[in-house]
């Protein structure tokens, strides 16, 4: 399973391509694909957003779903989705739960 992630051009905020067609600031609503066609479609969306100067550093990343929540496989992506592990007051993890949902 894969999802599409990038950093927003204007402020560098980590974002994920969501099922509603927007770039979301949290991983929760990211659109998951699980076949080559889906990956190709997300890649094309990422390339278009990059070319359109919306986002930079666009990547498809591997994820799994645990108890309904998207979980990246690599620690790097877990940290991107949450924030620095030494500063729980910073990054996505510091947001009010409602906003993260």
């Amino acid at each position, binding site marked *: 399973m894969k999802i599409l992630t990038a950093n927003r051009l*204007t402020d560098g905020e980590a974002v994920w391509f969501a099922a509603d067609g927007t770039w979301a600031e949290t991983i929760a609503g990211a659109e998951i694909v699980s076949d080559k066609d889906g990956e190709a479609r997300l890649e094309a969306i990422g390339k278009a957003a990059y070319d359109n100067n919306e986002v930079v*550093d666009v990547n498809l990343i591997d994820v799994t779903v645990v108890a309904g929540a998207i979980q990246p496989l690599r620690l790097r992506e877990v*940290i991107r989705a949450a924030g620095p592990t030494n*500063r729980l007051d910073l990054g996505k993890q510091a947001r009010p739960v409602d906003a993260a949902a």
Partner: protein
Amino acid sequence: MYRYDEFDHDFVKARVAEFSDQVERRLAGEITEDQFRPLRLMNGVYLQLHAYMLRIAVPYGTLNSKQLRMLGHIARKYDKGYGHFTTRQNIQFNWPALSDIPAILADLASVEMHAIQTSGNCIRNVTADHFAGAAADEVADPRPYAEILRQWSSVHPEFSYLPRKFKIAVTGAERDRAAIQTHDIGLHLKKNDKGELGFAVYIGGGQGRTPMVGKKIRDFLPEEHLLSYTTAILRVYNLYGRRDNKYKARIKILVHETGVDEIARQVEAEWQALKDGELKLPDADVAAIQSYFAPPALAARPEGDEAVKLARLDSKSFGEWLDQNVFTHRNPDYAAVTISLKGIGEAPGDASDSQMEAVADLAEKYGFDEIRVSHEQNLILPHVARADLRAVYDTLVEHELATANSNLISDIIACPGLDYCALANARSISVAQDISRRFASLERQRDIGELKLKISGCINACGHHHVGHIGILGVEKKGAELYQVTLGGSADELTSVGEIIGRGFGPEEITDAIETIVDTYLQVRRDASEKFLDAYRRVGPAPFKEALYASEAKAA
């Protein structure tokens, strides 16, 4: 300290205007990321995991209170209330919006600071001994020469597109506190028999994936030849350094592959053609730069001895701080103070906006307006009257900056690692925090004595792990963090690269492994006066391997 002249002001202002325009064009979509990336890197702007990162130059680690206050202001206004001091004596902000960077650079320019050449394949911020101008063991202040190199290397047309980045460090004392032998060029300022100033010149040192100790190619280069000789080295490197492979592009590889004697011969030949030309430094120019670094007028403060004696009797913790964090000044009434940015369990090198302002206030009130950033990621007040030490200490306590751990095991160098860095493979900060907490007892740390522990979250070695007495390198193995331990490294005048001790440790094992290493040292040392590094050099790795791995060898 150095003050910008009209040229410097105009130059930095013009650069801010140029980059502001580039940012605007990027945000408007007029230039692509591929076009913009090299431009932003030239101005110290990286993209990290969570946001952009801005790396600001602190030339040879010297700041005044106004500048440090501005860094605090930037932390508060544009970032998240803190900054990270780095092993190149610079500062990084981890969360700036690209759209705010022009405003940040304008604020920096107003206090004679910038982010130029903090990235890219150019000559980076020149570093120097953080006790420069203050240390009792110094022959001369190395900073005027670092400043001459800074002026010469800033947007140098010939050396702005080198095969790879290029780092220069200068020290003015026999005891090397600037790690010069781990640099592309290391300069040791010294005097010859006639009392003239000059440099021992080392080239080809470096860390990263191929650690090398610098080789001395000249024992005494007269000071007037600083730029001609440096130019000769850079020309040879620029011509022959490899551009086909990023990992083999540093001068250390050229020196290693060509042989130091042959490189020295080529440098000498190039220098012969240059040495009496326009790069020869006129005495008047050297003197003019030196005048910017004239030591402050230090009034006699003989009451310091008595004041320190009484304060020590009054407070055990002040006495410990005095023993650990106060360094001998060339003037016996004064001292240099290390302000630890390594509170127990804290991220090494991080300082909050209010801490920066508190240190700026202290520098203004008690420290002749001078602050230094050390490559060990601490702040220094280089000139404090001993009579004022107690007042300084009390203020530091209020701001949680009085940890008395300079040169002890919790005075850890650590790169940002995977908590921030896009290049990292493993976390560094969390490992530093765990080790710091494990060894929280100051009594225990002082019993262990001098121990330099350095952690990098990837092979690029920003955390200097190769030259840690104990070095820790984080790698990614099968998707998990793994920490490799090296022992016996050092970055002083007897620089050595640490040796890998054996298989790596998982994140939950690494602190135990470090404790085992420390306990083994305590068992093998002759007595408390034999430091970790000396004991390791005497007994070698065997007892440490035995302690770390013997049980699993038997089990197998």
